């Protein structure tokens, strides 16, 4: 792969460059710390590529405009932080229900409420899965390194398009503001996916007719199909329906679209997990401290490994179970009071002690803290 340029940039900037490389051509946002650099960079970059940026009147309007632009055929993104993520939840649900491709970035900060606007946290993990009302399908990606953020935002767009579903992209104040050398690639160097559409959109009347991956073949607005999109329970035509059978089937489709394609959505990293007696399960910026802890203790002969889910929802149940089942202990560090650990406990059926390392004081979890929990 040919590097276009190498830049010393932050994770937030890497999101902007990665989004452009992924083909994102619309961004709507609203200022909020610590995510504002994403909007600033998109406002600068997008028009160079013929794309559009708009600063809307609020967070709700931002995600609304991004969904609208996606319906009209543009790969779209919005970005925010904690309180803004709360505000976006209703429209996020509409994008899930209407199956509109969209990337929603949340640069996490402390909460609840205004919390700690310029300090890191991983406070919105379960909100990213269950924030909007109703059962709904969602994909959540939580990368660690700055270079990885570039590649993962590309993957976020690919998954959003391929499965016509919102992808929530979680970083936090640490890796959002951390600077590193990032290799930028042109879109010609990357594998990019576009949303599935009918071969001939003209006159297409069934926007929710599905392909073999259960993804609707929906034309863009303006391509000559003239169909209806609604947040109400709907049939294959997109028109609201009260038929219990059709409604139940729709909800199963929404669930199965993600569940049955997990192998294409999940991505994990493993470190020293073979023969490990203790496994650390960590994601996002906290995984960096976990890597260091595993490295240092490994050199001292402790049998410790790291399981790092990069797609955190859907939960990589089979992979996690396979890797962790022989461990005598599992350690789950996270900058919250224990959110993803609930998923680890569920998957591992509490067969071994599962210990959290948690803090919500606005400071990062250190390798030393994780080492202590491993040794305890």
């Amino acid at each position, binding site marked *: 792969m040919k590097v276009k340029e190498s830049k010393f940039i932050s994770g937030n900037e890497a999101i902007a460059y990665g989004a452009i490389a992924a083909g994102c*051509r*619309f961004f*709507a946002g609203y200022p909020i710390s610590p995510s504002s650099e994403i909007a600033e960079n998109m406002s*600068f970059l997008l*028009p*160079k590529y*013929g794309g*559009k*940026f*708009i600063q*809307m*009147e*609020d967070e*709700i*309007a*931002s995600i*609304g*405009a*991004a*969904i*609208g*632009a*996606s*319906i*009209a*055929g*543009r790969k*779209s993104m919005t970005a925010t932080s904690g309180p803004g993520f709360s505000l976006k939840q*209703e*429209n996020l649900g*509409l994008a899930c229900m209407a199956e509109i491709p969209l990337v929603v970035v949340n640069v996490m900060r402390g909460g609840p409420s205004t919390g700690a606007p310029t300090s890191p946290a991983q406070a919105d993990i379960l909100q990213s899965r269950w924030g909007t009302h109703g059962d709904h399908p969602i994909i959540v990606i939580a990368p660690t390194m700055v270079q990885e953020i570039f590649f993962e935002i590309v993957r976020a767009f690919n998954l959003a398009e391929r499965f016509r579903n919102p992808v929530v992209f979680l970083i936090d104040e640490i890796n959002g503001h951390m600077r590193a050398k990032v290799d930028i690639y042109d879109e010609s160097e990357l594998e990019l996916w576009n949303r599935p559409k009918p071969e001939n959109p003209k006159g297409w009347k069934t926007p929710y007719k599905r392909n073999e991956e259960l993804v609707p073949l929906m034309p863009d*607005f*303006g*391509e*000559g*199909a*003239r*169909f*209806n*999109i*609604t*947040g*109400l329970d709907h049939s294959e035509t997109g*028109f*609201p329906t009260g038929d219990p059978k059709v409604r139940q089937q729709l909800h199963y489709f929404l669930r199965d679209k993600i569940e049955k394609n997990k192998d294409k959505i999940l991505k994990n990293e493993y470190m020293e997990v073979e023969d490990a007696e203790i496994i650390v399960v960590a994601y996002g910026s906290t995984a960096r401290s976990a890597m260091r802890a595993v490295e240092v203790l490994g050199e001292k002969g402790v049998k410790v490994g790291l399981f790092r889910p990069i797609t955190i929802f859907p939960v990589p149940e089979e992979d996690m179970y396979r890797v962790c089942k022989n461990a005598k202990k599992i350690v789950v560090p996270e900058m919250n009071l224990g959110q993803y650990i609930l998923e680890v406990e569920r998957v591992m059926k509490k067969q071994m002690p599962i210990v959290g390392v948690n803090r919500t004081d606005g400071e990062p979890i250190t390798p030393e803290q994780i080492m202590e929990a491993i040794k305890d």
Partner: protein
Amino acid sequence: MARKETDYSKYLRLEYIPHIWCPGCGHGSIMKSIIRAVDALGLDKDKTALVSGIGCSSRIVGYMDFNTLHTTHGRALAFATGIKMARPELNVIVASGDGDATAIGGNHFIHACRRNIDITLVVFNNFIYGMTGGQYSPTTPIGSYASTSPYGNIDPSFNICRLAEAAGATYVARANVYSIAQADNFIKKGIQNKGFSVIEVITHCPTYYGRKNKLKTPADNLRWQKDVSVSIQKAKKMSEDELKGKIITGEFVNKTEKEYTQKYEEFVIGKAQGKI
């Protein structure tokens, strides 16, 4: 000159009719008015998007044969802004109720006016939340009864057209269902305006507003519209006292200003790509 006959079926999804509106509701008259305006302008249905929020009026999108989008409560203008930005070649029309447009969607309403983006907003103002059972809205007159104002409404109401004018919309007009032909003309001019247009159409909800406010039959409501309406020309010669309780109809704003997506194309993309 006899009015040109409009083939409504050309613009309707007849397979989804009958509609959900109550017998005697004024909304169907506005839907037909939109059709006549679109037909008179000869808009390409494939290149026309109709966007709505939540409420009785918002269900219009299901019945009309355009690119239609039924969004969340109050947010139609935000979605429509994204559509227009993404594909400026589309004609974008938004249908909204008084609660949808000026209560929960009030912020989006004033900002869409301010930007002057080329979207035509038709507000179906029936002074009430019909879908949820007749609660008072930002346009319910003082003293009127609603399911949440059992002792009479004390909230002053918004004047939607004045709000739109103050916020910067470049075409603003008000009509009513009683003299619906006027609405055809205003909607037509709104669509033709290269900028943000607001057409408020006074309509009626006999089921909730009417029943609670001594306007039980649809005819009572239409008569009321006729009685309270005053043309803008006539209103200019009337005193403030004489205008109390009256609703002024006509064109309030009709001016030309640079449209938002054009500005973005010329100034922002132009500068970013070094063309200007």
